[in-house]
């Protein structure tokens, strides 16, 4: 068993990316906004991916970046966008003592496990993977050789797991409707006209200068249309299109109605 020395380059990489990974983890836990948390986590995962590559596991590094960072985290963001923000982002802790206890226990756990690992692996020899990969055997080939021989059964079972997960997700996300309960267009239309609001909901940015999701629609009198607020985003002050405000421009009907100030409650919300 030949001890392979760890090169200076790797040490440099570790000491740069290690703090970055830590910062990402802490940022994920500490940031109020769930979207920010996801982005912090992406940061940590990318750093870990690099660690994999450095530690002679280029295949895993690629999978980490493509599957984890690319696919899974995007799935997270998707669900975040669907669910939106709510009170769970509040920083107020509702369970008494939970935060303090969690931090104390966490520090204790980290201390114990870290000390234990450090003590146990202080003089751990680094064998390196040169024997199984390298030369004409790539990392992927080494993994595949083992995966399709010794771990074949586990691999096949994994496929069953994935199928089950896919079906399970569909079952859980699916909304069951009895046949025939789907409403026709006529019924939908009728139901809509029975409400206080027969017209369509305003889209974002109507009458506004911009049309981003963050820009709510404006009502004809210039107030913000609450229906058009996007979830998860603070409604912004909308920069309005210029509109007639003066007496001369309004003409006679407005005169008669007394709507002299076109936006009396603007920006009230």
């Amino acid at each position, binding site marked *: 068993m030949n001890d392979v020395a760890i090169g200076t380059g790797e040490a440099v990489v570790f000491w740069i990316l290690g703090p970055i990974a830590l910062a990402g983890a802490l940022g994920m836990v500490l940031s109020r906004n769930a979207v920010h948390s996801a982005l912090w986590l992406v940061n940590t995962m990318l750093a870990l991916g690099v660690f994999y590559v450095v530690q002679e596991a280029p295949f895993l590094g690629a999978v980490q970046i493509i599957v984890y960072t690319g696919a899974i985290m995007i799935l997270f963001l998707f669900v975040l966008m669907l669910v939106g923000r709510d009170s769970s982002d509040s920083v107020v802790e509702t369970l008494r003592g939970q935060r303090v206890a*969690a931090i104390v226990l966490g520090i204790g756990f980290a201390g*114990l496990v870290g000390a234990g690992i450090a003590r146990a692996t202080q003089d751990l020899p680094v064998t390196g993977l040169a024997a199984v990969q390298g030369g004409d055997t790539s990392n992927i080939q080494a993994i595949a050789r083992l995966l399709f021989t010794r771990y074949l059964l586990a691999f096949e079972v994994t496929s069953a797991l994935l199928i089950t997960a896919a079906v399970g997700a569909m079952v859980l996300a699916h909304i069951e409707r009895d046949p025939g309960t789907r409403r026709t267009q006529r019924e939908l239309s009728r139901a809509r006209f029975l409400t206080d609001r027969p017209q369509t909901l305003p889209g974002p940015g109507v009458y506004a200068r911009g049309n981003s999701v963050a820009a709510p629609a404006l009502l004809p009198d210039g107030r913000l249309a609450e229906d058009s607020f996007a979830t998860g985003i603070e409604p912004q002050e909308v920069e309005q299109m210029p509109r007639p405000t003066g007496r001369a421009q309004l003409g006679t009907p407005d005169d008669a109605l007394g709507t002299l100030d076109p936006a009396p409650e603007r920006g009230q919300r």
Partner: protein
Amino acid sequence: MPELSPADGLIASSWLLIALPLAGAAVLLLGGRRTDRWGHLLGVATVVSAFVLGLLCTVQLDGRAVDVDLFTFVSVGSLDVRAGLLFDPLSAVFVLLITGVGALIHVYSVGYMAHDPHRRRFFAYLNLFVAAMLLLVLGDNYVALYVGWEGVGLASYLLIAFWYERPAAATAAKKAFVMNRVGDVGLALAIFVLFAQLGTVSYAGVFGSVGLLTGGTVTAIGLLLLLGACGKSGQFPLQAWLPDAMEGPTPVSALIHAATMVTAGVYLIARSAPIYDLTPAARAAVLAVGAITLTIGAVAGCAQDDVKKVLAYSTVSQIGYMFLAVGLGPIGYVAGLAHLLTHGFFKAGLFLGAGSVMHAMDDSVDMRRFGGLASRMKTTFVTFGLGYLALIGFPFLSGFYTKDAIIEAAFDRGDGWGSLLGWVAVLAAGLTAFYMTRLMLMTFAGRPRWEPGVHPHESPPVMTVPMVLLAVGSVLAGFLLVVAFPLEEWLAPVFGAPTEAEHVVAPLTVSLLVTAAMVLGVLAAWVFVGRREVPVTAPVRVSPVTRAARRALYADTVNESLFMRPGQWLTRALVFIDNRGVDGAVNGLAATLGGSSSRLGRAQTGFVRSYALSMLGGAVVVAGVLLAVTVG
């Protein structure tokens, strides 16, 4: 015990004797108000037909002992109780007494209970009683006897408490039931011992092998049987319930508490004669019980003002005579049973007469408010008077023959104890004459002391005819049973052929002694009661003897202070221990566990994060322990 012969002829259907009254009771109890109109007639009919059947069976019997095998009653392990009837001369005598006197009293009750809204229920209970009593005397094993024994106890309870709306009646019924239970425990234990020792409970099996037992066991069985007999027959020390049982309707007192049920103890001892023959100690106990009871009853009877209580104490006393007789062994069985039969007649007649008087006096029982009734109620007076003469042993009436026979037998024992018993019996005969004469004088003679508004009148024929018949029986029964058709010969198959006893004291002397005692008693009654005006309220300043007699020699007081009070203390202590100690421990444990579990349950907040926190805590502990073990 004579050889058993199989059932044949009419005797094979002797089970009908029990079934008829039982069916009557069932119909009357289950039929409800629909049977109100004719229920009493059905009740009379079943008993009369049972009497006729019993009479025919007796005629066919001819000195045999017939075993009527019916079906298996209990079959558990080695205990195999056949439900069978034993129809032998002894049970035949009882069957005739029960159905005969019972039929007369049923007829009487038709009139006596005419105005009672619950007459149907009354007849149902009476029929139930007759059925149970017949089972008691006809059963061919101790278990059947026990079933009948409990059946008559139940019927007695129901009938004493027939007017259950009266607190006194309900209390008396409870008292009777509880005191009977004390005796019943003795009987049950005796049966258990018999089964444990002999493996059988049938009379044939027991009497065949009882000689194999040790003397101590036989004595124990005899004493336990005696305890049962004392409870049922109102004998010392369980005599206190019988006078209180007079709270029931008078026909009940006549039938159950004078003529039949209370003599079941005598029957039990006579039936168990083969056991008692082997154990002089138990026989001595029977003698002692009889002598003590007959004295207590006679003394207590002298001071009672309640006409039915006087008769009740008289019953206690007369059954004491019967116990004394059967306690004497072979020389006394027949005498005791003869007295039982004649007593059944004249005491039933006396009770019916008392009932007639009460009927006339608006259900009053206070003799101090009677008086001068002889002219108003001639039939009652004559029949009652005949019963009275029979009871006190007036020459050539029933009591004279049978009571003298018992006293003779006592003297014939020959030793000092026999003389003592004989003299006690003679003394009690005098007391009997005293209290019965007092009763007669206070009720029928003298000046009327009636409550205002009471108008005595003679009872209707449906009541007087049974009284007349019983009076005839009272007069003739002794002569018939002792002289004309000697009971001794009839019962010879059961108790052995009569032997000419060696008389220690000549029979004539005994008769003269008893008659003299009787005359003295009557004269004393005349001196103390007849010559003077009877006060309407009982005098308060009386001698201690009178006071003791009024309280029945403090039997209730003794029972209360010896058993009831300590029992209550014990119960209270046990209840306290149970509530505070046992329940307290159990409840305390439960409360502790419940409280702590609900407090621990609070930790289950439902918040997943709390649970996860405890998981992390656990992980820290595991890591710490692991590290400590590895390093240490």
